[in-house]
């Protein structure tokens, strides 16, 4: 062994792998765990309530580069339960979307435009809610459009939306299971 020979690296006694490799692998595991922890903490969707992501297709051609106006229909499916109250959060994953109007649903119980929380309102995020004090036979069951959100979208291409149903209740005020979905409104 001359002066230019490298010194033998410290070895793991069990698996005969150099110790620096072990440290690097351990560091990688830490980084992966950290990254996973970050991903699980989605900023808009931190609620334990069911969160859905929906991709709404948009024009892909060059003509679509200008701003366009379209509407997103929001549906709540309360199955066999009568839906008396609901609250939801709708957010676009991108910031080139602006909410420009909120319309009511198709069922007479939710025909009036729902209210929004002005403090939670951003250009691309809104918390909506509505209730109806009518009797069960005046309330919708199954899948029903509860709101239509008019938006301005800058540029072409698809847009990813996050939706979260935070409250769904019966006329007695009991929480009921329900599912939420959205779709591009058709004229």
């Amino acid at each position, binding site marked *: 062994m001359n002066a230019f020979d490298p010194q033998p690296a410290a070895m793991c006694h069990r698996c005969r792998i150099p110790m620096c490799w072990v440290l690097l692998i351990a560091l990688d595991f830490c980084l992966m765990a950290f990254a996973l922890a970050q991903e699980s903490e989605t900023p808009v969707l931190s609620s334990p309530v069911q969160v859905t992501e929906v991709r709404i297709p948009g024009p892909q051609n060059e003509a679509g580069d200008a701003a366009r106006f379209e509407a997103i229909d929001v549906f709540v499916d309360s199955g066999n339960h009568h839906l008396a109250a609901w609250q939801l959060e709708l957010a676009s994953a991108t910031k080139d979307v602006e909410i420009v109007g909120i319309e009511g649903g198709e069922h007479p119980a939710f025909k009036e435009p729902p209210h929004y929380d*002005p403090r939670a309102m951003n250009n691309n995020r809104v918390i909506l809610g509505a209730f109806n004090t009518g009797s069960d036979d005046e309330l919708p069951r199954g899948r029903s459009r509860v709101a239509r959100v008019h938006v301005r979208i800058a540029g072409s291409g698809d847009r990813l939306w996050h939706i979260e149903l935070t409250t769904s209740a019966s006329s007695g005020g009991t929480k009921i299971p329900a599912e939420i979905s959205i779709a591009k409104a058709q004229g």
Partner: protein
Amino acid sequence: MAISKSRWSALTVLLLSIASLVQIGCGGSNESTSSEYFSEPKNSEMKDAGNERDFAAEAMSSGIMSPQRVDEAEVVYEGMPENAQRTRSLSTVFRTGSVQSGKTTRTTYELMPGEELWVIARGIETPSRPAEDRPGCGALMAKLPDVEKVVPVPLKHTSVVGSIDGYVATVDVTQQFQNPYSSKIEAVYVFPLPENAAVNEFIMTVGDRKIRGIIREREQAEKIYNEARSQGHVASLLTEERPNIFTQKVANIEPGKQIDINIRYFNTLRYDDGSYEFVFPMVVGPRYNPPATMDGVGAVARGANGASGQSTEVQYLTPGERSGHDVSLSLNIKAGVDIEDVRCVNHTVDVKINSETERQIVLSAGDSIPNKDFVLQYKVAGDKIKTAMMTHKDDHGQYFTMMVYPPAELKQVERSPMEMVFVLDCSGSMNGRPLEQARAAVTHVLRTLTPRDTFQIINFNSSSSQLGPAPIIASPENIRRGLAYLASLNSNGGTEMIRGLQAALDFPHDEGRYRLVSFMTDGYIGNDPDILNAVAQKVGDSRIFSFGVGQSPNRYLLDRMALLGRGAVAYLSLNDDPVQIMNRFNERISHPAMTDLNIDWGTMNVTDVYPQILPDLIVGRPVVVTGRFTGEPSTVSIGGRTGMQPISYSVAVDSRDTNKDHKGIGAVWARLKIADLMAQASRTPNQANELQQTILQTALDYSLMSAFTAFVAVDSMTKTEGQFGTTVAVPVPVPQGVRYDTSVEN
């Protein structure tokens, strides 16, 4: 390391704020500005006749230039041999007027080789009076009885439905826009609302579909609206021009179609000598704008778009014209105490008694022309009046509003000698009955003065003049002089209120007397902020009592003047008895005010109280205080001074009052906060940017209209064909009693 949802939200808000600031800096609007049209033309453009025509056509189509009579300018070259080195002589012939009656002027100029002569001539403007069938032919017109001419307008009807609970009103205003023409239009309507209206709901109805408008920063809302309009979508935009003047725009109304706009607001009522007063203004009076004002409120004839050159413009129907636009109004009052009497100042109403404490008021169908303020006063049982508090709790916190009444002892103290300054508006809009009312009011007060007092009479229109160089003793002889001076006053010309203000406040104060300045005016000016700033700067120890004269005075200006001047406001309708109104004024000024007010809130932990500078308490006029709190209301102590004597009293806040919950109180509080911050921003320009951000955020948080926010609604599902069509302003009548010829630019 986890980032909480609220932190993400805060981060998003921060980023959006930065983005919006960047947008402000870049001039977010894509609208063309006048400077583009009037920038200095290039030489080649000047020489190219074709380009000049395009430029003019562009400017005309943009609405910057009104269609006008074409003047002719000929250039005649005389004695111009080729290769001439000598001076060239040019004659220009200007021809103005019609071809038949045109007046011709010939001017000769000497030019050296290489020099150019640019002829820049301004044409004589002849604002177009639209034919009845504009913007398309086939207007849906109806002939009404007893009117000479019915003008089709894009506003069919305004419905007002109000409810009063205690002294907080909730009012729903529905404007029904329609298109009576044969082509697509954009309707623009400049209309008034009460100056303290907290507008926080906006819904657009298209067919049977209702779309809730979104509150946005004003520039952003305007940009969204303009884009939607140019893409053919039905859209609407509500902006605030003054705290009591708003502009409603509705784009892409197709022929025969109707679009409704519903606005909801909350406001507190004024209380005056035992009566609450509900006011709904129906028309913006014709405003005068001093020369060089650009952001004022113009008053022009119907169809004379842009003739005033002001950022906001109201078009007026000429005498004898009538639009089909009418107003219905109903009001439910739940006073909480017995109602003794109901009086409607300017309108005929039907009153239904539901109970001792409740009334239902309906405007008579025969009194539906929107040319005067609806003013309803209801007197409540005097012995039950007490300092009343209303509260509300929501996600933002707990709010209260409290009406603080002056102590009864105030009536026992006599006033000190006064220096009474009367300032009369003698401008064109006061011509006729308004000036007569003001004159009668001043005459009555003059006769009640004693030789302990002094007085001065100032009048202003385009300039100002006064009875004498200084206030004079109110001796019988001097009062006779004053009455003769009053009788000699006429009204015409502009409303240079600043001159009246200077004359009234810019002279040395008589230390031995209490100076009281009474403004008698309709307040029809477009430069309200300038006047209010001047009042704030000059008022000193004077007290200002403002009197709004006429059927539709500028209540924002008059209320603010009185607030800044630590006095009170009163309104003198053409239907009021001036003697009665001025007796009430005399009663108020016959006793000293309770000054330097401070309030000990007891068990309540109170913050963010508005107004931040409490006004004086004057006999017969309580002060409304609004704030946020925690804890339980019980006893409130109010302290102050009368003259040099300290005075204090305690009020047990009735638990029945505090249990009253009104969801509008949060909005009312936020509106008062915005008004207070706006006044601060106006007084302290170096803090204006910071205050503007606070105002903007408050308005967005509470979904409120303000100078910096606007409501926008877009129906993305309705797309009409072609461009957005013709913009049509809704012309309105001049207020009852105001002369069109002396107040509207023709």
